[in-house]
């Protein structure tokens, strides 16, 4: 793998060169936090952030997405026909994704891209995107990515990685063909000096050592599902929950949605919107019965899905990358690290919860 050297100006010039071939997206400051937004020609991505408030999930899987539409204007030929709307196919170049968010795409893919079902909206959006990560030098104290299958320099799910160099510039590494095509289009050609790979490896180690929080997940698979399901701690875990959607909507790995039909006069659409297992409506049956009518059932579902059902079904770790958003922004401080320890330690004696 070749590492390229970019000073700050060259980064901006290169990104600018991509307009026309790509829709360019990057982090932008919005009040007190950053979110991903389309960048205009000349606009720099703002890398002065620890992590974006909303995860990168929305770039591939928007909160609201029109899937099909119709109209009743009989002067036009296609009236009364529900027609599929596939998203804009312009390639996208996304800068500044944190490695945890990028790893989350791999987890979410297990849901949207399977042998049996292929979700065209997710797959097309994912495939047309070139994801350029930004290695994480200053992780938050609530981040636990290294024990959740990710890490501050993790490259899973990324097409290229940017690492800040000590002189205010960046090192750029292509990780896939898509990443390499982007580099060529950006015109980044100057190779970094020899020994840079070792420097990056050292910085990676240093960044990993700055992750101060971790979860233990080694016993989750061994736990009996029904025993965990009926564990006495759920009442205490769920007590403070207000059943808002903050954890699920900020989570890079929550993938649930609801499909809605909307009518506006003589036209309408079918759309999908993010949904949340925290909401009673999520499971309400047409009959009026609700299998998860109580708060404790919904809270349990969220943690059991991420930390048990997913673990058992895919045998690939937990459905969490340790980005820490739910820990930081839960209005009542329900902490997945604490719940994970409770679940992992269920049945064992003498072990103490670290958080």
């Amino acid at each position: 793998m070749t590492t390229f050297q970019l000073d700050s100006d060259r980064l901006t010039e290169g990104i600018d060169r991509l307009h026309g071939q790509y829709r360019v997206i990057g982090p932008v400051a919005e009040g007190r936090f950053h979110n991903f937004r389309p960048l205009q020609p000349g606009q720099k991505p703002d890398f002065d952030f620890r992590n974006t408030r909303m995860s990168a999930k929305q770039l591939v899987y928007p909160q609201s997405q029109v899937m099909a539409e119709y109209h009743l204007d009989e002067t036009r030929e296609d009236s009364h026909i529900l027609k599929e709307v596939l998203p804009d196919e312009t390639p996208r170049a996304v800068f500044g994704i944190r490695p945890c968010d990028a790893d989350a795409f791999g987890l979410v893919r297990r849901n949207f891209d399977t042998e049996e079902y292929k979700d065209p909206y997710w797959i097309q959006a994912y495939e047309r995107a070139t994801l350029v990560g930004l290695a994480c030098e200053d992780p938050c104290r609530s981040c636990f990515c290294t024990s959740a299958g990710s890490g501050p320099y993790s490259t899973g799910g990324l097409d290229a990685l940017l690492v800040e160099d000590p002189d205010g510039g960046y090192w750029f590494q292509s990780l896939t063909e898509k990443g390499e095509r982007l580099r060529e289009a950006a015109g980044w050609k100057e190779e970094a000096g020899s020994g840079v790979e070792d420097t990056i490896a050292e910085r990676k180690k240093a960044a990993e050592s700055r992750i101060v929080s971790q979860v233990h997940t080694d016993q989750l698979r061994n736990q009996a599902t029904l025993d965990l399901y009926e564990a006495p701690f759920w009442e205490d875990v769920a007590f403070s929950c207000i059943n808002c959607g903050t954890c699920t909507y900020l989570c890079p790995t929550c993938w649930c949605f609801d499909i809605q039909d909307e009518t506006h006069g003589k036209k309408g659409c079918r759309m999908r919107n993010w949904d949340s297992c925290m909401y009673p409506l999520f499971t309400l049956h047409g009959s009026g019965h609700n299998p998860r009518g109580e708060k404790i059932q919904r809270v349990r579902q969220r943690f059991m899905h991420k930390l048990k059902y997913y673990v058992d079904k895919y045998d690939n770790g937990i459905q969490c990358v340790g980005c820490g958003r739910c820990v930081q922004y839960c209005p009542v401080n329900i902490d997945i690290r604490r719940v994970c320890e409770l679940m992992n330690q269920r049945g064992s004696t003498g072990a103490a919860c670290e958080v």
Partner: protein
Amino acid sequence: MVEYTEKIREIAKRLLQECKVDAVLGFRSGTIPMMNEPCFVREPEEVDRLIWDSNCGINLCNYLTDRKERIGVLAKGCDSRNIVTHIVENKVDRDQLYVIGVPCQGMIDKKRITAMFEDEVEAVEEKGDTLQITAGGKTSELKKEEVLQQNCSVCIHRNPVIHDEMVADPVPEQEDVDRYADVREIEAMSTEDRWAFFDKLLEPCIRCYACRNACPLCYCPTCFVDESRPQWVGKSQDSDDVRTFHFLRAYHCAGRCTDCGACERACPVGINMRVFTKKLEKDCKELFDWEAGMDPKSRPPLDVYRPEDPDDFIR
């Protein structure tokens, strides 16, 4: 306020030991700085989980709705006013509550403090009126009154309006507070500017409903945005639907909101939706000389008719 902790544990232990209550509703220490978690303590041996400091901004009345147990509940001024509202609206019975009054000197604004430091805030320690903030390995001091939640800085009811026992002597109430400077600013805008202001205010909304769910007033079995037969509001990020949710929710809180700030505090994207409820609070004060939750025997103004109610709007 940290010194309240011992007294709270003492009261909780006594109430549980004497079986005066089935549980005590309070806060336990959070897992990250400037956060505590509401908790329900059922056993006298567990009372040491209870703590008190300036991070107890969640309104505990929200956890009383339709509960059947006898509960000892910690109540700041705002919580107590919401408890009164709950009693008036038959969501909890006065007899099942033992209100442990907590004189409050305001809760600190986590979002504001976080934004004041380049580095992540690692620890916050309270020493009287001062906060010691550790960020990036360095400790600095802030005056607590300068970093209060905005609703707390203009609060005029810091002491509980009902209580069975107080944790400490009442604190002096803030006087000469201009509660509505922000509302007047918005009232003075042209219609177009005001609409643009609301649009900008609500733009970050992700419809997680944390504001609604943190609010003790929002106890409808099915909120209007969740109704599906008929469905009143769309579910997407459409700005009309987002606005409909916020505006209607605010109106539903008219004459009931105590400006406890739970909604704003809960919002993960930093929206100050309190400007809506505060405008309605101001209107209720001006039109009906009404403050919510002050008296368990009075019903809120939009719930009753009085011949002297203002009727200038009838033309």
